[in-house]
């Protein structure tokens, strides 16, 4: 048992110090009827590193990895190239095997990273401040809705039609228990998002309007117009960014009037990982800081006058405020925040801009090629690296047949909206810097084959 340093001699010597005859005596408080007498029957016993690696490798081998085929999936999780130094740096034991920085004198590494991360996210989002991360985009989005309720003391959230349906589900689940009212309808297949519809739904009871930017169909909503309408009714605008690379080209939501900006940070530095762990991004105006969920790192000085960093404003948090806390969140996504921060440092503002241009160019190439296939139509007026194509038949079946041809062709709207048959022919297609001209051609040829 390679992870257990005690020897038999150590154990008996230690039992002598304790004054116990056996280790079992230390479990005396466990009722005898509940104590197990040996290893649980039917479970395997310990195994060598080589044997475990073989077992896990076989499981991994049963999956088709994104990098092994032409790949066009997005819908809230994006495949980008991650520079080798990112993974190297996050595997340094001083980062990987440290705890939440409760003892700041010996955690300045983590704390300075968090301060830099918060600064990067705030600038990316165009908000005054950002926190040290949440679990993922969907939970950050729910927390933003709850925060808006605390600030406005109102209980109705208007969700735009283009909000990721999993985010909608997460919000709806939580609202069932907190009693918030949720105003939401599934998207319509229009070339542009329904700005007028969102604005019409805002009233004097509305705490917030939640708008995804770009939206689930890849369209780009007019945040500024919605912000003006929301503010006129005393409601907050929450912008949701599931693909932060887009902000290399698009105006930051905070500059367009969003009061709270949340997002999924996975795109920058974090792999697909079948959906987790990901990275919740959370920024807002400074005046709302006391209502913000999650950890915050702040600058201060030490007893010798040197600059240093600490976790701060923890009177909002569960370990101090208990049932009166702004959230129950404790552990967040520290290591993913580090990965994001390293990748963002490698890119810088100029690099992110270049990366965004390349993503958009590849998406344009894909859209141009696919729209030349008879029976296929690109829905969007505007898009960043993801767009919706309308197929002549149910996209779920098309996606399955594409997979049989070794092409991961996109996300069908039927998978995301099983209750909206009118959307079933829609297919979300994403292209990033990892998408080659050959990939695009392979998708087009496979689609032509499936549809013929």
């Amino acid at each position: 048992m390679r992870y257990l340093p005690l020897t038999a001699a150590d154990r008996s010597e230690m039992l002598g110090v304790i004054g116990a005859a056996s280790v079992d005596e230390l479990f005396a408080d466990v009722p005898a009827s509940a104590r197990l007498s040996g290893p649980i029957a039917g479970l395997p016993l310990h195994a060598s590193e080589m044997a475990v690696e073989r077992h896990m490798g076989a499981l991994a081998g049963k999956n088709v990895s994104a990098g092994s085929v032409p790949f066009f999936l997005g819908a809230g999780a994006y495949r980008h190239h991650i520079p080798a130094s990112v993974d190297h740096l996050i595997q340094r034991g001083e980062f990987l095997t440290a705890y939440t920085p409760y003892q700041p004198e010996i955690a300045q590494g983590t704390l300075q990273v968090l301060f830099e991360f918060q600064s990067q996210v705030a600038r990316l989002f165009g908000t005054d401040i950002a926190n040290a991360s949440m679990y993922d985009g969907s939970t950050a989005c729910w927390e933003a809705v709850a925060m808006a309720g605390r600030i406005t003391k109102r209980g109705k959230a208007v969700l735009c039609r283009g909000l990721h349906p999993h985010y909608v589900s997460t919000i709806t689940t939580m609202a069932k228990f907190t009693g918030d009212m949720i105003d939401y309808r599934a998207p319509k297949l229009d070339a542009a998002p329904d700005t007028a519809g969102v604005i019409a739904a805002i009233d004097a009871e509305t705490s917030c309007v939640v708008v995804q930017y770009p939206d689930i169909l890849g369209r780009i909503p007019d945040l500024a117009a919605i912000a003006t309408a929301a503010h006129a009714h005393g409601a907050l605008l929450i912008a949701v960014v599931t693909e932060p690379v887009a902000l290399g080209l698009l105006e930051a939501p905070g500059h367009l009037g969003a009061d709270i900006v949340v997002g999924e940070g996975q795109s920058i530095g974090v792999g697909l990982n079948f959906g987790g762990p990901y990275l919740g991004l959370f920024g807002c105006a400074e005046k709302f800081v006391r209502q913000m969920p999650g950890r915050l790192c702040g600058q201060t000085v030490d007893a010798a006058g040197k600059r240093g960093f600490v976790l701060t404003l923890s009177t909002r948090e569960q370990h101090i405020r208990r049932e009166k806390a702004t959230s129950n969140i404790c552990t967040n996504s520290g290591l993913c925040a580090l990965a994001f921060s390293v990748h963002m440092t490698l890119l810088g503002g100029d690099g992110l801009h270049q990366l965004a241009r390349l993503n958009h160019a590849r998406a344009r190439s894909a859209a141009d090629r696919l729209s030349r296939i008879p029976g296929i139509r690109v829905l969007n007026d505007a898009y960043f690296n993801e767009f919706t194509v309308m197929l002549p038949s149910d996209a779920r079946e098309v996606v399955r047949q594409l997979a049989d041809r070794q092409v991961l062709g996109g996300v069908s709207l039927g998978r995301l909206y099983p209750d909206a048959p009118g959307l079933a022919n829609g297919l979300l297609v994403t292209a990033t810097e990892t998408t080659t001209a050959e990939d695009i051609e392979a998708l087009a040829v496979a689609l032509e084959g499936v549809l013929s």
Partner: protein
Amino acid sequence: MNAPNPSGWKPAMGSAVFHGSPTASGDRALMLEEPLIFELGGRGKCGVDIEAPEHDPLPALGKFLRRDPLALPGLTEPETVRHYTRLSRQNYAIDLGPFPLGSCTMKHNPRLNEKVARLPGFADIHPLQPQSTVRGALETINQLAGWLIALTGMDGVAMTPKAGAHGELCGLLCIRAALEAGGDPREVVLVPESAHGTNPATAAFAGYRVENIPATAAGRVDLAALQARLGPDVAAVMITNPNTCGLFEADLKAISGAVHAAGGFVYCDGANFNAIVGKVRPGDLGIDAMHINLHKTFSTPHGGGGPGSGPVVLSAALVPFAPLPFVSRTADGQIELIEEETAGRDHPRSFGRMAAFHGQMGMFTRALTYILSHGADGLARVAEDAVLNANYILRSLDDVFDAPFGSSGPCMHEALFSDDGLAEGFSTIDIAKGLIDEGFHPMTIYFPLVVHGAMLIEPTETESKAGLDRFIGSMRHLAARAKAGDNELKSAPHFAPRRRLDETLAARKPVLSWQGDREQA
């Protein structure tokens, strides 16, 4: 009494301490200072070579284009590697030495876990790929789920919660959904005073009123007082077992019986499951729901504050309400993911979705790798050694520190002390900061709240006896200094990258992001 550090090794410090004059760089040999990226990097620097786009396609973005360039500094790869490597050296970590944070379970993180999690078949698969292309991922989730169910003796497991507190919420929402489905919604959740802060915060988030349960003088839940409070308004009791005083709740079975008789559910905070894994199945104690922190019991790394993972094992009464997505085996043996598309048929009473996608897959692969490495026999040994190490610390220090529950018998995986008996003006914080100078990470301090100046020490099973003896030697040395009123201890740490930091200033005038360029502008 055992001799501290019987192995005898001690770093030689030399006879004279040299303070010397300031260096021109501000660094001192391997003690390296590091500016912020905003002070290092500039516009026009980039550590990634990005291909030029084939054509200029921007018209498709029209009016949404960013007006000003993004004011984010960039660094080349060598500068980036150096920046983060220098920062990393200002961190303490388990890889450097014992990290005895009580309740946090800082155990060794096996590197095989890291290697496996990075296999492209796990790391490079999208959550919305067709199921036929992710059979291995679903099987991985199912194998881990099978282990968690077997180790806890429960009926099902919700795999999606993203951390312990998210798991608590999942458990309480299952309970609330079950009660509401039975037409008996209730308003109150009972929580012991010694509970983690997440427990009352979660109960409040789930819409419940929180009331405290008193403890006995022996540090356990007061069964009689609990029974007296139970009634038709109590939805659930949240109990941590072993509890945050490091003690097993010996009456848990009776507590469960009483709560069930009153129509309520028992939620168990499984943060301390590492103390009993393979020795006791919580399901045999009558609990209805328990989250398992994979980053504690099953060795996934804490990463400086996450990511965690908090699957929730459930009793048969709660399984139907578990959140989506949900993995189960079909009649023909295939492992199928139940999402909204098929939930109406296969999992109709689910309370819904708690997060996008399937949960923390990257943590599942690490945890399953760890579980398979230890096997059923090794996991029981994990609990035994964790408890043995904690009791060794308890009995090696209880003559110099007050152990409030030391007389009630052995502890489980963590040893609890108070600051009683230190010199006037000396408290737990001074012991903690003194430990930093001794080269250790401090224990959990001032938690649980039920003990004055609590020091909660959790060594875990991955510390060697020699490592424990060095730690014990340092603790005894610090006890002597604190009892003698050694004033230098009041200003510790002296040897860390930073002295004590001004937390009041940080909270009074919050500086939460870099503003340097704006101040100059």
